[in-house]
């Protein structure tokens, strides 16, 4: 991207992304309704987005995201989700409230800050001194203003956890299905938004919790052949983007 998008254009892009995800197709009316703006401003925004090659748009024609548009929209959506998750999970803010705040903040957060943010949230999740208990402690403090000195038990609990996670870290490792190498096996842990390819994979049995094994890669490097439920399935790496596995 050369020129950064304005906040409102980012909102439009985000709306298009969501509507396509929910309905499979998008009309100007859907966008207007979602954002609470007039049809005329939608048309203007669509033209401007099309001008930047982020969407395909002809009046009365189908609106679709280009691959650049999809990645830009994905970017905005991710920023939104990271912020919202932080508000909900860490700060224990109510969902709708968190959404509103995320909506306003998402445009001004730079990529750098966002990366740090993600890492911080992960850090809290993973760090033995952080985690759920620690967060619960924080919300207790918010709710009751209590400040009790139970630090010793807390520390010993944390130490116990360190030992456990050290073991499980060896075993399970989250990664993308596309990065699994031939001969490696994994258990599907999450499935991203339903592109036609992902939807098809799910119907072919790649559901959460299923074991998959990468059998081989085509001579030219793509697609890959995986084994699932005892049969062989081939898929392109890019199309398996949204599927995450725990390597076994």
């Amino acid at each position, binding site marked *: 991207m050369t020129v950064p998008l304005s906040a409102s254009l980012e909102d439009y892009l985000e709306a298009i992304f969501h509507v396509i995800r929910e309905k499979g197709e998008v009309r100007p009316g859907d966008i207007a309704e979602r954002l609470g703006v007039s049809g005329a401003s939608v048309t203007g925004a669509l033209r401007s987005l099309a001008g930047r090659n982020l969407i395909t748009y002809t009046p009365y024609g189908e609106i679709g995201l280009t691959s650049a548009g999809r990645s830009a929209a994905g970017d905005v959506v991710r920023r939104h989700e990271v912020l919202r998750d932080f508000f909900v999970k860490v700060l224990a803010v109510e*969902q709708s409230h968190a959404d509103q705040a995320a909506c306003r903040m998402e445009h001004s957060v730079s990529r750098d800050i966002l990366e740090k943010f993600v890492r911080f949230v992960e850090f809290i999740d993973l760090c033995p001194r952080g985690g759920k208990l620690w967060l619960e402690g924080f919300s207790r403090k918010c709710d009751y203003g209590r400040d009790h000195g139970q630090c010793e038990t807390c520390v010993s609990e944390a130490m116990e956890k360190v030992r456990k996670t050290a073991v499980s870290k060896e075993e399970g490792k989250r990664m993308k299905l596309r990065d699994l190498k031939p001969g490696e096996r994994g258990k599907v842990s999450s*499935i991203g*938004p339903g592109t036609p390819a992902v939807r098809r994979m799910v119907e072919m*049995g790649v559901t959460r919790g*299923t074991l998959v094994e990468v059998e081989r890669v085509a*001579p*030219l490097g793509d*697609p890959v*052949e995986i084994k699932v439920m005892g049969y*062989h399935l081939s898929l392109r790496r890019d199309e398996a983007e949204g599927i995450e596995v725990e390597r076994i």
Partner: protein
Amino acid sequence: MKSRLTVALAGNPNSGKTTIFNGLTGARQHVGNYPGVTVERKEGTLRYGDTEMTVVDLPGTYSLTAYSVEELVARNFIIEEKPDVVVDIIDASNLERNLYLAVQLMELGTPLVLCFNMSDMAAAKGLSFDQEKLSRFFGAPIVNTIGHKGEGLKELLARVEEVARRGVQGPVSEIGYGREIEAELKTLVRLLEEENQIPEGYSPRWLALKLLENDREVGALVSSPAIRAQVEKSAKRLRGILGEDPETAIAAGRYGFISGACQEAAVSSVESRHSYSDKIDSVVTNRVLGIPLFLALMFLVFHLTFTVGDPLMGLIETGFGWLGDVVGGLWPEGSGSLLRSLLVDGIIGGVGGVVVFLPNILLLFLAISILEDSGYMARAAFIMDRLMHRIGLHGKSFIPMLIGFGCTVPAIMATRTLENRRDRLTTMMVAPLMSCGARLPIYSLIIPAFFPGNWHAPLLWIIYVTGIVLAILAAKLLRSTVLKGESAPFVMELPPYRMPTLKGVLIHMWERAGIYLKKAGTVILGVSVLLWALTTFPRPSEADTARFDAAREEILAGGHAEEEELLEQVDFREAEAALRHSWAGRIGVMMEPVIRPMGFDWRIGTALIGAFAAKEVFVAQLGIVYSVGEADEDSDSLRDKLRENYSPLAALSIMLFNLVSAPCMATIAVTRRESNSWGWALLQLGGLTVLAWVVSTVVFQGGVLLNLGI
């Protein structure tokens, strides 16, 4: 009890459905299309006791969503035409995935029989089932069959009749989708009932489920805004709670039901991790060997099609030549009878032109059927996908393109293996740019006539490569304009290798060849007669005829030693004059302003009109316009004439035009038939003609500017 039953066969691709269908109906089959789409509809009839059964072979699908035409066609057939029984053919050696379709059929509430096919393979794999239990889970009887041996078909028919007689029995088990989804389903069902939005023949729970699954077809059935709003709300809520799209969660629910059922009722005694199929694959799709093996196999297919086919083609040609002579011999020698000309040159020549491709087509489809039925075709697509995906096509597009080097007609028919319409149309549109065998005589006539020996091979290579490059560019152009959109995902099963059965392969082959003969044949015949008329009418004026007759008499009277030769020359001159006088000749002359920029004159124009019938006719037509009589690609007298009249640059331009323009009318007819629309056929014709004109003009004018080749 009805004495006529409609039975629909459903099942996954590669489940052996076609083998069962062939086994049930034998040769009593009828192939058509579903209205409005290019999905094949196969029907057959059989008698079982007093009952006459019509068996409909539904397209092979993994699921019943609205995302692919095949699935939609299968689903709509079941909902709208209400077959008395649906038989789901299941590959018993791959039970879980195959049961996914069975679960959806069960949810549709249709009378169902489960046919566990390839039960021998399942047994060999160490799988055994508690069929009674499974049968109870699915509320449907289970029959074991071995399709390629025809075992179990009698019992299958008995169960079909039984189910038809008693209908769906008792409460079929319902799949529980978990608390959250069930709650939303309940809300939706209530709303659907309240708003009276349940179309005839649909179950409310199924409707609600499909709405949650974001099914466009079903969404269009429900017009109430309140329901739509509720669906959106429910989907959003579920997405929040479950962390995945509702359709993903619902699919997972179905697989949950299946794995539950299988855990209770299926026993696997050994886990066979490396079957023979894996062993074959480790060689065939090997990183190093994969591509060379693939190319070698393709070469073999080519060889079979065109080398073994050629003598047969020659035989057919001779046969039609003989027939033409016999029919022609009914008239006295030298008779100008119109009827004779129509029969011999128009109809026999035209029909011959169609039938002559038959050996090629039969052999090619024999090879393709074997590759397909054995499971190799999926691997070929797997190997080539990366390359083809780059130019906006699908792995499966490679085979048709390759066949295009032999003959475009079977190449276009071979696009049937592509499921996605956009991918298929793009492949069809660009396949003619692969320089076909019929164009070769043109190159081998012209290249030696104009270019020194060490140029021959590189020039031929350049021409072929030009075709390939243009095909890539054209594919890219089409994919970014009229055929814009995502290409089909490459989520494809690589089925285990299997020994193809003779019966299956032959039926497969004959189906396709029959379609070619029937449909393309009628159009080609019509155009042949039209082209005949163009080159025959208007007939030469009486004055002309008299002039040539006088010339003949003069020679006869003179008593020359080379009498024969001189007479022949008069005949050639007469033929030339007649052609120039005909509509084709006049059109050639009229076209001159248009073809002049490419360096062509009216003679080339006239030959091009003939070349539209088939490219190999081009050489023969040039022979006529240059009065050298019967000409073929080795004719030196024709080469001399050409050298006198054209520059090497114009010669290159002629070859390029023939390379790019539509190969023959059969191609256009087959495109029309395969795309089911004249629009695409005409776009192909027009697009290729315009492209050919542009390429030739640019080359010729560019060459003239640079002072080359004169």
